């Protein structure tokens, strides 16, 4: 079948070591123009779907909340009454609950995540201690939210109750403070991993320059590392905050689910996410449902903005 003689093929000169049938296929094989077009179209469609999902999410939330937007307008944000029975919906208690619980969680989280970032990124970059800590932080990030909630319910709530008895406040156990505690545990891995990355990438020359001037480790961290990594650390904190704002299950299980403005740090409350989780399936009446969707819309917008700003800080850190 094969031939190794010199051949003329269609006026073209070839030294043919190839069997005829292969020469023919190579020369005239189909170029798959049809598949090519189909393939490119598939890629294009997938890209459009990704953009479309976000756009459609926004549109769906807007349409879903139109009834509530029309009925309450701006007062939806300032109203303190959430009363499904009389059909009056104001979301201020949840906005406050979300803001207080997430900011408190952030406050608790920052020293710990900064410590982990410095531990892994500056003080002990190698060795068994850092491997253990690093794996532990990754494990923390992997545990599902509902399990955090379950654990908080059975382990954290009794502790907080003891604390409340000792402080002489009503011993609910559940409430804003408990929710903030569990939230803090959950968001530590996010800010710690970003913090570690930026701290580890501080140029050695900068640090050496400082050491050569007689600086201690503490001085170097305070005067060189932290200023250098500042926008990266900020980004980590912002992204962790974004997580805390939208976190649902663990918070829902321990916040106490009270639809009133929180009166203190320990009072039972509700966040935007937890009120949706609690009431969405029970929402009777279109205005009730629409109000819950409007809370979802607010949550969507807030987390999107916080995240885009966070990513902006990361990019700024990357370019400096």
């Amino acid at each position, binding site marked *: 079948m094969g031939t190794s003689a010199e051949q003329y093929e269609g*006026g073209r000169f070839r030294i043919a070591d190839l069997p005829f049938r292969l020469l023919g296929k190579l*020369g005239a094989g189909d170029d798959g123009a049809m598949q090519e077009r189909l393939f490119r179209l598939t890629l294009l469609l997938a890209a459009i779907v990704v953009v479309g999902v976000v756009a459609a999410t926004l549109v769906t939330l807007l349409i879903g909340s139109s009834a509530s937007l029309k009925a309450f307008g701006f007062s939806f944000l300032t109203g303190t009454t959430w009363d499904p029975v009389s059909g009056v919906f104001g979301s201020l208690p949840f906005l406050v609950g979300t803001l207080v619980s997430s900011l408190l969680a952030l406050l608790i989280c920052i020293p710990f995540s900064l410590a982990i970032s410095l531990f892994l990124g500056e003080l002990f970059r190698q060795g068994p201690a850092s491997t253990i800590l690093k794996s532990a932080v990754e494990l923390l990030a992997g545990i599902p939210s509902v399990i955090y909630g379950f654990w908080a319910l059975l382990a954290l709530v009794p502790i907080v109750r003891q604390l409340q008895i000792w402080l002489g406040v009503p011993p609910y156990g559940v409430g804003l403070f408990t929710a903030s505690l569990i939230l803090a545990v959950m968001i530590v891995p996010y800010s710690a991993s970003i913090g570690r990355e930026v701290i580890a990438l501080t140029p050695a020359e900068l640090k050496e320059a400082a050491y050569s001037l007689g600086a201690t480790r503490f001085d170097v961290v305070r005067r060189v590392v932290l200023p250098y990594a500042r926008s990266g650390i900020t980004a980590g904190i912002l992204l962790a905050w974004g997580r805390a704002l939208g976190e649902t299950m663990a918070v829902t299980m321990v916040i106490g689910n009270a639809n009133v403005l929180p009166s203190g740090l320990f009072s039972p409350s509700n966040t935007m996410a937890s009120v949706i989780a609690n009431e969405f399936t029970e929402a009777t009446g279109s205005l009730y449902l629409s109000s819950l969707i409007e809370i979802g819309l607010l949550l969507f917008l807030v987390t999107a903005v916080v995240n885009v700003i966070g990513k902006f800080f990361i990019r700024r850190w990357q370019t400096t």
Partner: protein
Amino acid sequence: MENPVLRVEDFSASFGQHRILSEVNLEIERERVTAIMGPSGCGKTTLIRCINRMHELTAGASVGGRVYLNGEDIYRMNSMLLRRRIGMVFQRPNPFPTMCIQDNVLAGYQLNGIRLNRDEKRSIVEKSLRRAALWDEVKDDLPRRGVFLSGGQQQRLCIARALAMNPEIAQAARVSDFTAFLYLGELVEFGPSKKMFTTPKDQRTEEYLTGRFG
């Protein structure tokens, strides 16, 4: 020149506003090794990239003029079919990391969906590797991935990959400001002496020198 394998007429190429080749005219003789020399950045690589139409894949690239392969205008041919007829070896070796050595040689067939039987495979692999002067070094490692090969061996693997397609022209771009058009009949002769690829002696390459661009 009588019946050149390749004829380039008034050929220009640019990236956006930046013109790289202008009004190039040359003919490449059949069954000969032709070298194109010039300082780095003068457009040698661009010229050979234009000849198998790789240049146009870069965004903002454009060309003018004509290139004839055996009398056919290559810019009127289907680019995919043209590239199968012109073998190309790049400056840096780029074997496929996911494929074993044998599949690397046969990549031009397998990726184009052409089925080969066992005899065809064996004969193409052996012939191509022999021509690229790599057979003796790898004949026992054909089913292994090529990551363990040295840079030079990887480059010869890429040459074998190009030769396996039985191209009408094989082009190789080399660092050390030296670019060669190689007609495949001659490569057998020059293949083993890596000298020609890596350290061309002035006198010898002078004979093949056909033009300067810049």
